[in-house]
């Protein structure tokens, strides 16, 4: 009966892990190639990290370092070459799209609309995975969409057309649609790109508050070293398809390491909050 008891122990293990670790990226690798016969153009070497509910993880690195590939793998848009990604113990890339969308929401760089839509119509799209394709939205769906808009401070935008609001407002509505999916895991690809500083800080403040309130696990891909230092609980530092360092910002932000990765002279200081702050030393 050793097999049975080990199975029971395995189940207990999964249960214990499910309480603590929500997202587990385990030795995940990937390779892009234009042609299967040729050598791959880009490879992501085996990468691992874990995240708990309420945690914000920032994936940092220069262009072509593998940040976006890693995010696509977590989102289930790509299948890993080796390794696996578990969300509450389930392998993400084998889930049906509908089931996956109930658990993972992805906020991408702004999408172009073919025909005009109002903000509330856009947010209601987030409810799609929770109903059948042909169904009409219920009172509950409308309530969840309204709440989502209110949670990102965009309740007043509800009746505006999506192509007539500012970039910052649009980014909030896109985030509201992700919240309407009621996910466990929120993935964001460069959410602050093209936003002014006030909009960047506003968005990230909202994200931190939501992660704490709703116990989302948040993974953000970004170029913004200082915003990541300020808002992330964990940083995954990527360089040429490898994860160089993993940990809280204070342990990852080392001057030599960042200079090597970003190929730019810079200085790192620690403020009163204990969070690092990076200054680029241009022209020295």
């Amino acid at each position, binding site marked *: 009966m050793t097999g049975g008891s080990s199975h029971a122990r395995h189940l207990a293990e999964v249960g214990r892990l499910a309480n603590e670790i929500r997202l587990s990226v385990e030795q995940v690798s990937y390779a892009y190639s234009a042609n299967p016969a040729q050598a791959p153009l880009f490879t992501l070497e085996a990468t691992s990290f874990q995240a708990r509910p309420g945690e914000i993880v920032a994936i940092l690195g220069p262009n072509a370092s593998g940040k976006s590939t890693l995010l696509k793998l977590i989102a289930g848009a790509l299948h890993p070459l080796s390794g696996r990604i578990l969300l509450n113990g389930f392998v993400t890339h084998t889930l049906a799209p509908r089931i996956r969308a109930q658990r993972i929401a992805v906020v991408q760089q702004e999408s172009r*609309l073919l*025909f*005009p839509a109002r903000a509330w119509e856009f947010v*209601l*799209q987030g409810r799609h995975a929770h109903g059948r*394709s042909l*169904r009409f939205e219920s009172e509950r769906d409308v309530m969840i969409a309204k709440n989502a808009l209110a949670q990102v401070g965009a309740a007043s935008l509800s009746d505006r057309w999506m192509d007539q609001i500012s970039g910052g407002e649009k980014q909030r509505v896109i985030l509201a649609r992700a919240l309407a999916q009621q996910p466990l895991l929120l993935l964001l690809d460069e959410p602050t790109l093209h936003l002014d500083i006030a909009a960047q800080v506003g968005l990230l403040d909202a994200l931190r508050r939501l992660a704490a309130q709703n116990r989302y696990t948040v993974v953000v891909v970004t170029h913004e070293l200082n915003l990541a230092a300020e808002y992330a609980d964990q940083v995954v530092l990527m360089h040429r398809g490898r994860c160089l360092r993993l940990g809280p910002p204070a342990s990852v932000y080392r001057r030599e390491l960042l200079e090597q990765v970003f190929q730019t002279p810079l200085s790192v200081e620690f403020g009163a909050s204990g969070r690092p702050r990076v200054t680029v030393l241009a022209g020295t």
Partner: protein
Amino acid sequence: MRPLTLHRLLLQCLLLLVILFFVVVLALKFGAVPVSLYALGRDLLRVVFGQSSGISSDYGLIIVNIRLPRILLGIIVGASLSVAGTSFQALLRNPLADPYVLGVSSGAALGAILALIAEPHLTISPVFAALLTPLGAFLGAAATITAVYFLGRRQGQIDSSTLLLGGVITASFLSAIIMFLMNTLTGNLRGLAYWLMGDLSTSPQKSVYWFLGIGFLAATGAIYTTAGDLNLLLAGEKEAMHLGVDVPRVRLVVYIAASLLTGLAVSVSGAIGYVGLIVPHAMRLLFGSDHRTLLPTAALGGAIAVVFADTLARTVVAPAELAVGAVTAIAGAPLFIYLLRRRLA
């Protein structure tokens, strides 16, 4: 917030049904031979009560044996082309997609002609022989949309202008092959040329009507089950996938069903252009771009448009007749140019 309700959808459809009814009355009344509304009502009631034999006048025979079947055909063809256009626009993320512009209608016409050429050489029962043309048209439509889809792809993404240009060139290439094949067909060549321009004047047999009606309902029903998915596909395939759409499944269902609709329509009426372009755009302006409303309203709107256009085609140069395809092209081509210019602006 004002989400779509079944109530609102039914009201919109009812409105269009009323308009369709008036257009049908108009189409029954006008033609080379004018008919009074009283005679029209009397003869139609006789048909409804199964007393067709009581209709003795020539006018009555014109109504029941010529105009009514033609109107029915117009309704099915118009609804089919319009639903096909709506589906292609969502799937290809291109507001200018239309079965005619993309070359799908030409592909269906070529398939139908190949079936006509092959028919005498095959030993099959007459029942199946009648279905050979629609089947050929469907296969031609499906093959063409597949080819145009791959022509329009660049680096894994559909490029809008390449797609349209690919469609237009494919259409002209297929038309050239059709011209070539027509020389091998003996018989009513002028009728065939007319049919290629889009024409409702040759009524098919009664069994074909049943086949058309059932095919239309099945294909439109299949597309309608994906209405919510199509709304999300407008944002792009990747985004739709992240929102929970099973993209490959939806794509397959809609491609097959829309090809079937185009094939059915072309096999009985030839290539009537621009219906799938004009009607969905008008319905979006009137009722919004949610596919749960757009698909049924586009079907009704397509029926209205084609029956109306055919009435014009029959009356404008009476006692001669225009091809209905000429009427829809005169209305549709300028609209296409307008939409194209507005998109580039």
